[in-house]
């Protein structure tokens, strides 16, 4: 019987079925972060339980770490206890920690792929809803809570009912300065913030095939913003080239054998999905959010919608967003004065993201009165960017250039905006108060964020540097 890619990975990893009907799915790679792991470590200690496979478990310090150069455990006082508890818990349980100061430190969803810890066809869990970022490599990932984290530590499996399958076909060709981020935002706008709830999503189509691996990760990263726990892209030759030589990837004959398996990782031609969605990306322009959830999106040349144009069930949310965002219906997005720009996070802080932003910024200055920062997704991304001179481009333009971590995405490390500020952010959530009390967040691509930093207003990158 023809199978979807999702079902192939699920079936291979299904260890058995529990008495309550849940499948036990083996987790090949489990990556922890310091904000949530301490609860699980404490529970294991209290219950006298052991970590079943510390060798398949990794840990990062990302959510609470300061971004200031020369940072240490105490630079962010509210993160200090988390950082130390993480170190202690990893030491006690024999887990490899990419600690502060480690050359491989960074955001879990950036570090795991760049080190080759996560592989095509592998299952992956992180106690963080953006776990499915690594779906961009063809891995099946699950964001989970703290209790599930403890469960995976002790058993190396997650207990789940098989979700439904959705295929999203992204057809056509992307225009200049239109990225995976813009595609994802448009898709969330079309399907809504719960559109993929209960589904595992496979992204396919010509637009996906032509996306660089990093942008496929951006696409899968935002899967949870339409409610989907897992999202993935079938791996292809570009994926295998991207993984070649990564430190934790298989080598030699193992690599050759892995390639033979990975080349079978695609949905069969006649595979049946529970839902199919198609989006033609050819005429898509850069996208930006105007409201307080990631489905409140318009094209960059668009305007804040009139209440009458909003679906009735979504009208109350829109009305509340108008107030919070300080935007009247009908207002054009381009030209709105901004106070802050954040380029970073698991969504958009891999090297190509920074290259794109730097290309916009090069030889220009951040507008007066705008606070702009770039926080690389990992310490490795930071080193590579510095080797290419990108840090100079950003700093010369007036950007802060930080040490790697989640930073302003959720503000868990104290990097936050001031009340009332309007912030263009390359992150994943524009929820009220997320980037600081009363901060007004607009989600956009690195190119749009960079162009807006220069203009001091929301800007269409295509008019700043031409659509060539």
């Amino acid at each position, binding site marked *: 019987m023809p199978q979807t890619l999702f079902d192939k990975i699920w079936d291979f990893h299904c260890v058995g079925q529990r008495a309550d009907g849940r499948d036990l799915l083996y987790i090949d790679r489990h990556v922890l972060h310091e904000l949530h792991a301490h609860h699980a470590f404490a529970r294991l200690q209290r219950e006298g339980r052991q970590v079943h496979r510390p060798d398949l478990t990794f840990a990062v310090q990302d959510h609470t770490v300061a971004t200031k150069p020369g940072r240490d455990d105490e630079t962010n006082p*509210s993160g200090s206890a988390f950082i130390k508890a993480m170190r202690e818990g990893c030491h006690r349980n024999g887990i490899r920690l990419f600690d502060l100061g480690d050359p491989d430190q960074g955001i879990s969803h950036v570090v795991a792929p760049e080190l080759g810890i996560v592989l095509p066809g592998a299952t992956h869990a992180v106690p963080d809803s953006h776990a499915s970022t690594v779906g961009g490599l063809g891995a099946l990932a699950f964001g989970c809570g703290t209790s599930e984290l403890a469960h995976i530590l002790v058993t190396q499996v997650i207990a789940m009912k098989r979700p439904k399958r959705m295929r999203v076909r992204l057809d056509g060709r992307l225009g200049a300065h239109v990225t995976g981020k813009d595609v994802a935002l448009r898709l969330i706008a079309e399907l809504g913030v719960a559109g993929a709830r209960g589904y595992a999503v496979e992204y396919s189509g010509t637009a996906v095939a032509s996306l660089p691996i990093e942008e496929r990760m951006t696409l899968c990263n935002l899967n949870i913003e339409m409610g989907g*726990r897992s999202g993935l892209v079938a791996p292809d030759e570009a994926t295998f080239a991207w993984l070649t030589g990564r*430190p934790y990837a298989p080598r030699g004959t193992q690599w050759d054998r892995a390639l033979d398996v990975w080349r079978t990782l695609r949905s069969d031609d006649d595979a049946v999905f529970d839902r199919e969605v198609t989006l033609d990306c050819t005429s898509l322009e850069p996208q930006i959010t105007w409201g307080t959830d990631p489905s409140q999106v318009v094209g960059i040349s668009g305007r804040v919608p009139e209440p009458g144009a909003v679906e009735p069930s979504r009208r109350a949310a829109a009305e509340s967003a108008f107030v919070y965002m300080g935007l009247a219906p009908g207002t054009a997005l381009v030209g709105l004065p901004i106070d802050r720009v954040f380029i970073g996070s698991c969504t958009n802080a891999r090297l190509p993201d920074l290259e794109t932003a730097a290309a916009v910024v090069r030889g220009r200055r951040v507008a007066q009165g705008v606070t702009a920062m770039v926080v690389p997704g990992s310490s490795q991304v930071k080193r590579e960017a510095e080797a290419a001179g990108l840090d100079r481009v950003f700093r010369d333009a007036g950007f802060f250039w930080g040490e790697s971590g989640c930073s302003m995405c959720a503000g868990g490390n104290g990097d936050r905006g001031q009340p009332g500020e309007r912030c263009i952010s390359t992150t994943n959530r524009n*929820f009220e108060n997320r980037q600081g009390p009363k901060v007004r967040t607009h989600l956009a691509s690195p190119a749009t964020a960079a162009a807006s930093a220069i203009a001091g207003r929301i800007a269409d990158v295509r008019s700043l540097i031409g659509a060539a």
Partner: protein
Amino acid sequence: MQPFKSLTAIAAALLRDDVNTDQIAPVLHGRGLKEDYKAMLFHRARRREDGSEDPDFVLNKPQFRGAGILVTGHNFGAGSSRESAVWSMLANDIRVIVAKSFADIYRENCLQNGLLPVVLETKDADAFIARVVAADGRAAFTVDLVTQRIGGPGGADIAFDIAPAERTRLLEGLDDIGLTLKHMDDIARWEQHAAVAQPWLQAARDSR
């Protein structure tokens, strides 16, 4: 896990869709690992800009301060996977959330902690919300997991569905890890199989 059988309590209605976990349990700074889950629940939503309590927020109203049942709209618990968004409910003695739908991770976090997530069809949910609003905290509702019914003022009992296995787990307060530990032999067998079939999955070593 604390078992859940039945709860008779005041019900409060939060009339919104897509309530996210940033709203339910915002990140609060300065408490380190000793978080105050009771104070965390809707910390910002229940305050005005000057930091004082917003008397209009439903859980701040005197008649709803002891509410044990929350009823709300679609996609409750969207966003981050933080389990504090469930612990903060329990810290306020809210043991039941009735919604038109739940975000996937949030619903799982509820089940893991003995908080009963009840999903009602839109029609039933709207009818129940109307009854909760009409009762205005003056009379209690009963959510009974044994009979799978919600009863209280203003109408007949409402039946609800829940997967039998999830119901049993909540009724008996079964430990999820304990359930899976019975399968450690299966897990070991799978590991042996994978080590042959796809050995790179069973080893994660830095080759540098």
